[in-house]
C-alpha cells in the first residue's frame, strides 16, 4: 500500500493540492481531503473507459489509429484542434504545434465558458491576485453568478470563506460574504447577504454600482430588481473593505450581455481601487482551462480562437471560435482533445461535427468519441500521467501520477507528438 500525499486534484479550477491518495497495487483504494466530486472521480477513474483505439468503431492498433488520424488532418483544408481544458500544459503546447503544422485553428473550451471574460480583460485590463492572497487578506468576498457550493466544493473552505488568514484571523467571522445571482441558490444560506438580481439585469446593476462608487447620486428606486438602499449599502461595504474580491462564474459570462458584463465588473473593480484594494477572479471550471489560455498565449500571443491558415497566428473570437467554425460549416476535419463538444455545443455545431471526420483523444466513452472516425484512449493526466496545470488564479501546479496506466496507454502529449510526426511526414511527401 502506498500513500501519495499533497496530490493535486485534476477535476476543477480550484486545483486543491492537499489530497492524500492511497493506492494498493494498481488500484486507488482511498482519497482523503477531497470533495465528493473529486473522490468519486478518483475512485471511478477506471470506469467507462475507452478500451482500445478504434477507426470507424472498429478496433485498430495504436499505430494504425495514429496513421489514420494524421491522414485525415493532413488532408483537411480547415482543420480544427479543440478541447484542451482537461489535460496538462505539455499536451496543450503540442496541440498548438499541431495546429501550426496543419495550418488550422486551435481553440479551447474558453470559447464556450470564460471566453467573454478574456474579451473583456483585453478590452479593459485586469487586476489579478492569487487565492493565497484572498485567504490571507480578503474581508469582503462577492460571488457573482457563481455557486461554489455546487461547482467548486472546497473553494469556500480552502480559500474564500472559512480559512483563517494572516490578516483575517477569525476566519469566517472576519469576512463578509455576498452572493449575487438571478435565482436563489445554496449560497443564500452560506452568504451573509444574498442579492437577487433580475434575469439579464447584471450589466445594469454593475454599471450603477460603479457610478455610485464614483459618487453619482442614484435616482432610480431600484435597478434590475435591487432596491437603491441595498445598492448603496453594498457600495459602502465595498469602499470600506480592507481587501475585497469578486469571484464570478458562468452566470455572468454566459448571460445576457456576456463579455460586457465582465467589462462592467472590471470597471467596478477599477473604480473601487481608488478607495481600497479590490480584485476579481473568474471561477474557471475545467481544471486546466487557465493553462490552455496561458500556453496558447505564450506560444501564439492569443489565448483562444487562433487561426494558422495563413502560416502565422491570427485571432478573432466570433470568427475562429469552434462553435462558429462548426455552425458555419467551415471546418472540414477536427481533432478533439480531452473534451466532449458533442454533448456541450449548440445543436447546429454538433450537426456539422457529426458530418466531418473527427479524431478524439479521451479516457472515457463520450458522445464525441462515439461520433468520431478515430478514437484513441489516453492516460488520465493527474492520475495516470504527470504534467502541469494552472489554477483559476493562474498559479501553476504540478500534477502527479498516482497509478500506472494500462499497458500501451500513452498520455495526450505522447499521442499528439506521434500525430505531429506523421503529419509532418505526410506534408513533406505532398509538397
Amino acid at each position, binding site marked *: 500500500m502506498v500513500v501519495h500525499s499533497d496530490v493535486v486534484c485534476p477535476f476543477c479550477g480550484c486545483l486543491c493540492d492537499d489530497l492524500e491518495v492511497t493506492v494498493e497495487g494498481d488500484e486507488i483504494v482511498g482519497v482523503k481531503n477531497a470533495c465528493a466530486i473529486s473522490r468519486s472521480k478518483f475512485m471511478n477513474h477506471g470506469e467507462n473507459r475507452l478500451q482500445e483505439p478504434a477507426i470507424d468503431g472498429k478496433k485498430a492498433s495504436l499505430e494504425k489509429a495514429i496513421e489514420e488520424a494524421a491522414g485525415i488532418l493532413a488532408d*483537411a483544408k480547415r482543420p480544427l484542434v479543440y478541447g484542451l481544458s482537461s489535460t496538462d500544459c505539455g499536451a496543450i503546447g503540442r496541440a498548438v504545434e499541431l495546429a501550426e503544422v496543419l495550418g488550422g485553428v486551435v481553440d479551447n473550451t474558453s470559447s464556450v465558458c470564460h471566453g467573454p471574460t478574456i474579451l473583456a480583460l483585453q478590452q479593459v485590463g485586469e487586476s489579478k491576485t492569487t487565492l493565497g492572497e484572498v485567504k490571507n487578506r480578503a474581508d469582503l468576498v462577492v460571488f457573482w453568478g457563481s455557486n461554489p457550493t455546487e461547482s467548486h466544493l472546497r473553494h469556500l473552505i480552502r480559500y474564500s470563506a472559512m480559512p483563517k488568514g494572516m490578516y483575517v484571523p477569525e476566519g469566517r467571522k472576519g469576512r463578509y460574504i455576498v452572493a449575487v445571482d438571478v435565482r436563489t441558490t445554496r449560497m443564500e444560506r452560506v452568504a451573509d447577504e444574498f442579492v437577487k438580481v433580475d434575469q439579464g439585469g447584471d450589466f445594469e446593476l454593475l*454599471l450603477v454600482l460603479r*457610478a455610485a462608487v*464614483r459618487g453619482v447620486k442614484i435616482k432610480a428606486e431600484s435597478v434590475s430588481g435591487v432596491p437603491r438602499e441595498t445598492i448603496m449599502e453594498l457600495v459602502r461595504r465595498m469602499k470600506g473593505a480592507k481587501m475585497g474580491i469578486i469571484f464570478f462564474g458562468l452566470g455572468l459570462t454566459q448571460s445576457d*450581455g456576456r463579455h460586457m458584463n465582465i*467589462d462592467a465588473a472590471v470597471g467596478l473593480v477599477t473604480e473601487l481601487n481608488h478607495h481600497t484594494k479590490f480584485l476579481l477572479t473568474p471561477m474557471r471550471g475545467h481544471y486546466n482551462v487557465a493553462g490552455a489560455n496561458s500556453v496558447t498565449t505564450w506560444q501564439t500571443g492569443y489565448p483562444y480562437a487562433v487561426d*494558422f491558415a495563413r502560416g502565422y497566428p491570427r485571432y478573432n473570437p466570433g470568427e475562429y471560435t469552434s462553435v462558429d467554425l462548426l455552425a458555419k460549416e467551415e471546418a472540414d476535419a477536427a481533432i478533439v482533445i480531452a473534451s466532449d463538444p458533442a454533448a456541450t455545443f449548440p445543436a447546429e455545431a454538433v450537426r456539422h461535427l457529426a458530418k466531418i471526420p473527427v479524431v478524439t483523444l479521451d479516457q472515457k466513452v463520450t458522445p464525441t468519441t462515439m461520433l468520431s472516425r478515430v478514437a484513441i484512449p489516453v492516460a488520465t493526466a493527474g492520475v495516470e500521467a504527470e504534467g502541469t496545470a494552472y489554477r483559476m488564479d493562474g498559479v501553476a501546479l504540478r500534477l502527479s501520477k498516482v497509478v500506472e496506466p494500462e499497458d500501451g496507454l500513452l498520455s495526450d502529449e505522447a499521442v499528439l507528438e506521434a500525430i505531429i510526426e506523421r503529419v509532418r511526414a505526410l506534408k513533406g511527401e505532398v509538397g
Partner: protein
Amino acid sequence: MKELWLTPTALPSIPVEAEVICPDVVAGRTLKDVSSLEVYVGNKTHILGEFFEVEGELAEQASEQMIVVDGTCQTVKYIGAKMTAGSVHVKGCAGMHAGSQMSGGEMLVEGNTRDWAGAEMSGGLLRIQDDSRNMTGGAYRGSPEGMTGGCIVVEGDAGVELGSFMRRGMIVVKGDVAPFCGVHMNGGEIFIMGQAARRLGAEAKGNGGFIACLGGVDEILPTYVHETTYKPTFMKLYMRQLRDVLGLEEAARFLETPFRRYVGDLAVGGNCEILVAEK
C-alpha cells in the same frame, strides 16, 4: 471610371479570403495579372480566377478604378478591406470584414453583410442596402479604437455592438439596432431611424459623440440622466445632410422634431449624448 467585373462562379463552402478585391490592388495591372492574384481558402492558396470570371477594364490609378462584383459572395471575406480610393459595388451579399479598415473611396453592397463590416474604418463611404450583422464599424477585439472617420449607411437592421469604441465618423442605420450600440463610444455620431435596443451608449465617454434615436428606444441605461427636451439646431443641419447628401428621405420628417437629451454614461464619468426624438 474604369469598370472591372468579377462574376463569382463556383465558390467553395470554406470562405475565400480575398482582400485583393480592392481598387488599390488591381489598379495598374492587366486582366491576366488580376486573375492570378492570390486568394486563400483555409490553409490552401488559390488564384482569384478560380472563383471569379474576370472581365472589364483596368485603370492606372485606384481612384479611377471601379470593381463590380456581379453576384452574391456571402463567403468571400475582406472585399474592399483597406481600400483608400476608387469604388467597389457588390451586386449581392458580402462576407465578413467587408470594407473593414477602409480609408477612402466608396463601397456599395446591395445585399447584406456579415460581422465586422466597416470595422475600424477611417474614411470613405460604405453603404449596405440590406442588413448588417454584428460589430459594424466596431473595433477588433482588444483594440481601443473602432471607427475613426468616414461614413457607414445601413439601410436594413444592424447587429450588436454597432460602432463599438467609435472615435470619429458617422453611422446611419435606417432599420433597428441590436443591444450595445455605441458601446465605449468616444466621439462620432450614430443615427438610428428604427428602434434602438437597450444598453446603447454603455460605458461611453462621449467626447462630443452622440447617438440620435429617431425611432424610439427600448430602454435607457440607469446611468444616463435625462437633462432636457429641446430642438437642437445642429440636428436640423444633420437631417438636411442625411436627406440631401445621403439620400435618406425619411430624415426630412425630423427637421422640426424635439429631442429628449440624456447624458452619460455616468459609470465612466462620460458626457455622451443620447438624443431621442419625441413621437
